[in-house]
């Protein structure tokens, strides 16, 4: 917008509105973050401070007792390690399956392509539901297996279609010359299409990772064996009843029952927050690539 038009924008009423708008938006931004900051402060506070002070963003006495308490719990550490592994392995598998399927579907002359796309779109608006899926997972012998957390949700139809559209819009010349040089499709995907699609693959890889890390429903449905529970399941157990440390703590000191809730919430949240800057770098772009026409 040029300066002349800008000045017509810049009336007194306009400035008042801008000021109020800025204040409102900053307040909204703070509200988005505040619960998290409170829990961060609480996770470093003493049990006494948590139970007596209603709200604080800086503990009067900083202690790591809550973190020490959960880190000395075998149950917690095992759940954390398990969740890291499931998230890592699961992300690779889910992203690979999605990209492998997206590539052939991006070839408009592939026979049967339209039928397959219709079936995929159908899966977005209709699903058999929780129980039939549960019974199939059971039938396949995946109950109490970590594969049940990864495979049933391996390909997200939305992600598949967006990645497919992205592949479709890549310039064709590079592929053509590789094809003339005798490269097969697998090789073209690996050494031309995949490198060109890094941002979009990174975005959806992170979405898959966040989905796996945050998943509560799959372990609830498929992991009956408590020894296999993931971090979200443990988090639920701790915050709903504070029973994590009761039976597997070695110390004689009673665990800080409130403090561990704060600390477990933080541990479940922090990896997602660490991934967030990377997510944010790409997601707006990644999300829009497939949805903007043209």
């Amino acid at each position, binding site marked *: 917008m040029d300066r002349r038009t800008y000045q017509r924008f810049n009336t007194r009423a306009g400035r008042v509105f801008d000021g109020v708008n800025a204040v409102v938006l900053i307040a909204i931004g703070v509200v988005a973050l505040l619960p998290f900051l409170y829990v961060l402060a609480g996770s470093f506070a003493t049990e006494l401070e948590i139970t007596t002070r209603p709200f604080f963003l800086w503990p009067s006495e900083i202690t790591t007792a809550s973190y020490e308490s959960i880190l000395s719990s075998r149950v917690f550490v095992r759940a954390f390690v398990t969740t890291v592994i499931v998230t890592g392995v699961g992300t690779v598998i889910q992203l690979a399956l999605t990209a492998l*399927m997206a590539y052939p579907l991006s070839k408009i002359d592939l026979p049967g392509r339209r039928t397959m796309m219709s079936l995929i779109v159908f899966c977005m608006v209709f699903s058999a539901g929780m129980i039939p899926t549960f019974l199939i997972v059971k039938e396949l012998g995946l109950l109490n297996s970590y594969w049940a957390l990864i495979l049933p949700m391996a390909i997200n139809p939305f992600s598949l279609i967006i990645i497919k559209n992205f592949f479709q819009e890549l310039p064709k010349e590079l592929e053509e010359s590789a094809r003339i040089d005798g490269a097969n499709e697998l090789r073209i995907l690996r050494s031309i299409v995949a490198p060109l699609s890094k941002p979009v693959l990174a975005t959806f890889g992170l979405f898959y990772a966040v989905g796996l890390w945050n998943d509560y429903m799959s372990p609830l449905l498929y992991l009956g064996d408590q020894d296999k529970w993931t971090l979200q399941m443990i988090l639920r157990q701790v915050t709903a009843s504070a029973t994590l440390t009761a039976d597997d703590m070695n110390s004689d000191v009673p665990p800080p029952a409130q403090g561990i809730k704060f600390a477990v919430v933080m541990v479940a949240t922090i990896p997602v927050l660490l991934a967030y800057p990377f997510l944010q770098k790409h997601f707006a772009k990644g999300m829009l690539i497939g949805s903007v026409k043209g």
Partner: protein
Amino acid sequence: MTTATADVESIDDGTLVRREPPPNRRNLLGNLVRYRWLFLLLLPGVLYFALFRFWPMYGAQIAFRNYIPFLGIEGSEWVGWEHFESFFSNPDFPRILGNTLILAALGLFIAFPLTIVLALLLNEVRLQILKRTVQTLVYIPHFLSWTVVVSLTGLLFAVGNGPLWTFINDALGSNTNFLADPDWFRPLILLQSVWKNTGWGTIIFLAALAGVDQEQYEAAIIDGAGRWQRVWHVTLPAIRSTIVVLLILQTGNVLDTGFEQIYLMSNALNRSVADVFDTYVYFTGIQQGAYSYSTAVGLAKAIVGLILIFGTNALAKRLKQPGIF
């Protein structure tokens, strides 16, 4: 995501140049040889959809049978609509339908307009650094799990020491345990949804707004349009089709309340208002083992959703709005 669906249909309309002349489709063997690499790459994905998407759809026929795992799907006795009838005549049914529809209405009439308002406010910011900072902050909650959000709620509303428990009870002069009080269940669900998803929801509107030609604003200013008039006559028309598409999708999902949030927020004291289709399927199917009955409930819900999404889409088209199909 929505127009992606539309794009699927528009691909073969000639907007993209075909690499090679279309092959003879009757020549199956020739195609298999010619496209062997592509078919090979397709195989794992096709297997996935067959196993985890379409096999369950086949298995959903147990809604019409008395499924006994030992006898298998086909071996179990066919009972027709019995499970559907027993659900619709069950006193739980009107209660669950009501709970689900009230939560959906809160989402549609409160959370959804709030998303549009936030997008409009962000769109009015001319200081880019402020806009970006606020965007960064309001997107964050979307990435937290429902377990974390519900746990945060538990800590903020903890009886005796939770900040919001203290604050609201002081303000109202009451002594309510919000997490156990059925009257507070819906406001808390709405509060969580708004906190978690409003910021994220603005992305699609902001993208639509980024495409608005700035000259339209300049022309409006020259014509003497005030700020409010510019929002009303330029900004809102620019996102009207986005609003319609999202409304269609949301109407189709009216019976989907999101299992995790409701399940995690429900407890013995608020079940009267907390039971919705998704959690009811879980309680009757997984916990009580009534596989056929719960499958029938889930199927009824999915079919109503399907009808709603096609119905609203057709309605939108009749009203000369862009649909999603």
